[in-house]
């Protein structure tokens, strides 16, 4: 049963890690908008340095509404 001495703190540490991650999520406001980020991942703004034509289709949906 000596293995428990290792396993027990390990289990608790993993749990605490999860809790810490949860607190970090909350503090950085990741729960304030649960819809936007799912779409944001499709945004190519990290490629903006490349010569993208100004009339890229991104602007089109907004004009429709």
């Amino acid at each position, binding site marked *: 049963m000596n293995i428990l001495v290792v396993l027990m703190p390990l*289990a608790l540490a993993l749990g605490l890690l999860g*809790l810490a991650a949860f607190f970090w999520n909350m503090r950085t406001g990741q729960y304030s908008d649960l819809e936007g980020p799912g*779409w944001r991942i499709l945004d190519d703004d990290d490629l903006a340095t490349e010569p993208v034509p100004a009339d890229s289709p991104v602007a089109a*949906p*907004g004009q429709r*509404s």
Partner: protein
Amino acid sequence: MADGQDLSIFVRHGSGGVAGMELAVDGMRCAGCMHAIERGLARETGILNARVNLALKRVTVEWREGALRPEAIVASLAALGFKAYPFLPAQEREAAQQEDKQLLRYLGVAGFASMNIMLLSVSVWSGNANDINPVTRDFFHWVSALIALPTAAYAGRPFFESALRALRAGAVNMDVPIMLGIVLALGMSVVVTLNHGEHAYFDGVVMLIFFLLIGRYLDQLMRRRTRDLAGNLAALKAETATRLGADGTSVVVPIAAIAAGDLVLVRPGERVSVDGLVESGSSEIDQSLVTGETAPASVSAGERVHAGTLNLSGALTIRVEAAGAGTLLSEIDRLMAQAVESRSRYVRLSDRAARLYAPVVHATALATFLGWMLFGLAWHQALIIAITVLIITCPCALGLAIPAVQVVSAAALFRRKVMLKQGDALERLAEVDTVVFDKTGTLTLPEPGLSNLAAIAPEVLAAAGGLAAASRHPLARPIAMAAGEPRPLDTVREHHGLGLSAMVDDVEMRLGSVAFCGAEAEAAAASAAYPAASLIAWRHGARCAVFAVDQHLRPDAAASIRDLRALGLDVVILSGDRLEAVAPLAVALGIAEFKAGQRPNEKIAELERLAAAGRRTLMVGDGLNDAPALAKAHASMSPISATQLAQASADIVFLGEELAPVAASLRIARKARRLMVQNLWFAVLYNAVAVPIAIAGFATPLVAAVAMSGSSLVVTLNALRGGRQPATPAREVSA
């Protein structure tokens, strides 16, 4: 008319020379809109950061201090095709957000603790079934205690605080048995662990806290969604006032920026947005939203005007006495205080259950203890059994029974464009048997319309529309609207208190009062056909016409009233308007019971009379004069076009031009109440099974854990049925 706008009140000045502003954006629905806004704003020079919150339909913009004016942001969003309205970062909103976060933190800690302790407990249970080494078991129990005690002290705080508050006030709520259960169970478990016993209930306690916190959080979630949406709607209303500077310049500013002592200009056709004294000018004002009276009253310098009144004929400058929430007519103020007091006597379903529940449970536990003592058991063993009774009866399912139903039903209401402001409004709404409607702005549309459109020749309407478009008079607006908002004629002259005129084909064309146009004969015919309507005449040379402008019923008013009747409700009209205006409308809707010319105190008296006759009333109203009645009635609803005070006093606010939400909300509320009662009965049934087991002393920690999670699951699943609403007849009728 081309006043500058000043939105600087909305700007938040952060550190490092960064200014920020939050705006509610109308019509932002999809990810495409989000990209368009963020990209479009990022292209503007000076803007450091623009971030959209798609769930809340808001955008937060930051810029370098002094780089641009806040109005420019609204303008550039308008250029992108979105209407945006700035937000005032309200103090209470921040406080509520803090509370939200705190609750989520408690929930996170309780979740972590219950998972880890369960891990240890399952090992102990399976060990007990075989032959666990007592030293190992003690070790596991101590580790559980190490997790459970700080968790209970931290995450149990909402319950302890609420229970202590109730006890200090000499009352009992659901949190009192919860607190007692938690404290006793923890104490007992520590003692058991010290004595190397088999059964410690650390897992049960923490699981209880976790489930109860879920219920709390659901409750909070519902209120937050309502608050966010209400915040957006308040911003979308964008109430403004024209402030006159000392140097004679005029600036349009949001109401929030107006302070007492400012001088405000109110043009004809504009709504007065402040309370104050008339400094100069004279005019007629329509006070229907304030007093319910539709006949205009004349005001001149030195007289007092109230927010919500409509300026009809002349420009007024007003010295502000109170802005924003403002002062009220003292009579309404007094009635409100009285009405709110009577409403607060309502006891919520959960509190009613708690009142029965706590004494019964505590008496059972005590009887168990004494019973086992008499039976000859040692006192500490008898105490352990009594405490397991308390643990097993702990209202885990009860804590979820009502909030879960409320959240699901509130979401169902949201989809029908109905905002629930308080959870317990559902319970009150379900008990209603009489619906009391206000007339003006509730049964009728908030804006008047043209009644005799069919009798007017199209070319007459077009000509009159050109004149009417030049005026902001409330009676001219429906004519311009019916004519399709034409371009105003160039040479329109306004004749104070009479009407408008312009030269067309070298003949003077007039639009205005009947006498101004010399149209007495036509007016007599029109007033015979539409006795309640206001008349506006038009004359061009020999040609002459009379327009009848009147309040129009909401498009589905008749169908909604039929629908309410089908639900078994009585319908009553209480209006502040004249009898001649109310009677034909009541007949058209088939409502036999109506009262006209009701002052706010008479409305309250009528509600009291109905209540004394054993009827539960739902008040539906929109005016300042309805506010006391809205607060007084058993439940209340307001359309979104209502005055601020009316909305604040109503339990429920509905959007759109239709009345169908009234019947739809009643249906959902009744279903919700049925589910709540079912859930409470389930909790009773659960206790009827579990308590004898506990009294017999068979309630091991394993039994407690299974019973607790099982019952919570059942009530939650039952609550979810509230969202599965088939298409209601109300929707079919209105479709």
